[in-house]
């Protein structure tokens, strides 16, 4: 009896918070879902706002611009996350070894992550501007003719990937550094006694024990990279043509530039479902990984 009263009190106290969560998270999501079942084109108000059921979703299936954006976004996520994990691991190992001026070095390393993405992207855009950008000039110095970066469908990815990797590698390094410092030092001492070299120690001790941290970092980064918007918006605007348009960019332009609220909502819902599935998948892998490392 007493417990249920306490329980009721608990719910009552939590109610305002739950209400706010419902208002700012659940309600907009449900509204977007409802909106995605309508034809609602602010630029064609003469069509009204009829209910079209799954019509918008059916249109997505044959929308080449969306599928291309999805393919590009996936590739971008795979490439940047792989580069960030590699560079982040190297950085974390170095930071772990550094003894002198540790605080200052770590602060410097984390700096790129602290700069707002839009600002960082603008700086990178200036570097790759043609003609007269720093990158173009530097390449000319060593005798290489640089492409017109943002007017080339492949070359345009170089500044994008570089900016993203530069910006978020410190974040990955920080997560991995925490993982490294959780590893029991006595394991390395025992390995030294057994005569294992540094490479063997890295392969057999560091990597397996770092796996949970790597998985967490990969999951966070993959989710972020999949929703990438600001870097692309600032640097290429999705161009040349639509060569660097990501899912988030396409959704943005459909919703906020073309004001196609119904179709744009359908795109948002799809992007949300995909990101959610990725998170669930990551959590399962991550959960299993954590379990195995506990067994070890």
């Amino acid at each position, binding site marked *: 009896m007493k417990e249920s009263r306490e329980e009721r009190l608990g719910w009552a106290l939590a109610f305002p918070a739950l209400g706010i969560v419902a208002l700012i998270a659940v309600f907009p999501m449900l509204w977007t879902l409802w909106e995605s079942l309508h034809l609602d084109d*602010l*630029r*064609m*108000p*003469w*069509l009204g706002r009829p209910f079209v059921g799954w019509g918008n979703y059916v249109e997505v299936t044959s929308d080449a611009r969306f599928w291309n954006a999805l393919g590009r976004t996936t590739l971008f996520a795979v490439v940047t996350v792989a580069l960030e994990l590699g560079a982040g691991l190297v950085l974390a190992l170095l930071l772990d070894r550094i003894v002198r001026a540790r605080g200052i070095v770590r602060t410097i390393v984390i700096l790129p992550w602290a700069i707002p993405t839009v600002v960082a992207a603008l700086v990178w855009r200036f570097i790759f*501007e*043609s*003609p007269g950008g720093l990158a173009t000039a530097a390449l000319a110095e060593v005798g290489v003719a640089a492409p*017109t970066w*943002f*007017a*080339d*469908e492949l070359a345009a990815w170089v500044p994008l990937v570089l900016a993203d990797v530069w910006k978020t590698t410190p974040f990955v390094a920080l997560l991995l550094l925490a993982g490294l410092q959780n590893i029991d030092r006595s394991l390395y001492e025992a390995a030294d006694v057994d005569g294992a070299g540094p490479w063997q120690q890295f392969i057999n001790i560091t990597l397996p024990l770092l796996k949970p941290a790597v998985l967490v970092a990969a999951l966070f980064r993959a989710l972020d990279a999949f929703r990438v918007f600001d870097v692309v918006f600032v640097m290429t*605007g*999705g*161009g*040349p*043509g*639509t*060569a660097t348009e990501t899912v988030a960019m396409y959704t943005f332009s459909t919703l*906020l*530039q*073309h*004001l196609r609220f119904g179709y744009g909502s359908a795109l948002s819902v799809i992007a949300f479902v995909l990101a959610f599935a990725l998170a669930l998948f990551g959590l399962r892998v991550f959960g299993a990984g954590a379990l195995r490392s506990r067994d070890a």
Partner: protein
Amino acid sequence: MTSALRSLVALGALIQVLGCSAGPAVLTFSGSSVGREGDVITRQLERFARVHPEITVELRPTPDAADQRHQLFVQWLNARAPDPDVLQLDVVWTPEFAAARWIADLNRFHPPTDSFFATAIAANRWSGALYSLPWFIDVGMLYRRTDLVPRAPEDLQTLVRLAKDAQREHGVPFGFVWQGARYEGLVTVFLEHLGAFGGAILDDAGRVVVDSAAAERALGFMRDTIYADAIVPPAVLTWQEEQTRLAFESGQAVFMRNWPYAYTLLDDTSQSRVTGRFAVTSMPPAQGGKATAALGGSALAINAFSEQPDAAYALIDYLLRPEQMLERARIAGQYPTRPALYESAALADALTIPVDQALEVIQRATPRPITPVYSQLSDILQISIHRVLTRQQEPGPALREAAAAMRALLARAGLAARTS
């Protein structure tokens, strides 16, 4: 009725009375309000208020970027907001707002349409009715360095040759610069090349004809000036107006396509290195077409939900008077929409550009497609043109793809049947 309820009703009535006696309703105007344009409009609104003491006018500032202003107007009008009463519209928005029934039909005010340039008036009509009046016009112009190229090229092929010669003989880095970034400006540049080769985006009946052989030649020509003739630097594919202006101003380009605003700046010795060494003409024609200048500019319209359309029209009528246009030309450098003014000495005094040069280009003015879905059509075109110019696609397939997407859009908008 309880006494509490009774006093509530009384209070309501009182508020209503107070509301009514608060003086004349406020007429709101919304448009460009920064810099020199802001100076002009503030002055003119004050003068209008002095002539019409019964009307209080208020300026409602909006973002200066066209896209952002458009978005704001769409949100306001979609919510049926009764103000702003008078709207400054970009020339390509009128059909969209008219089809949405967001702006009022002006025919009942019997505006003197004959006093304005016919092309400018045409861009303000939708399905037979007039929805806005042209306030000032912008036209795409060909700037050239008169010290390098004394005579204007008679066609595009000559332009290519002259640009190459000047590049080679005088070491000028760029032969020709224009706005090639993926945005609205690219469509206006394309329109001028398209007209030069005798093509069009939509035909007179509103059907999509941008996949014609002429259009293919025009787009192929644009691409070749970049990669084959090498007179246009690939960097223009990321440039808007200002980057091209800076290149021309610093003496790095032989020819430039730009709007009239650049003239005043190029004429300013404190920042320009080409003062006194440049002139403007219209973009030259090529085989099969005619010299074409993209038409830009602004129009004035009345919010369809306005509670005081008569006062709103009085303001429009005032802002469009010759003396107001002359003041606007003098301070903001914007061209009047009344052809009669181009014969007056007052306009020659007001503009830095020689009036005959301006008029020559204005007479070539060609509006962009007059359709309520123009912005969406433009977006489709921007992508396809940019793909061709960055060598991702050939002109033929790109234009056929764009045309198919445009036809699908017109069908979805319910405009394909109406216009056939």
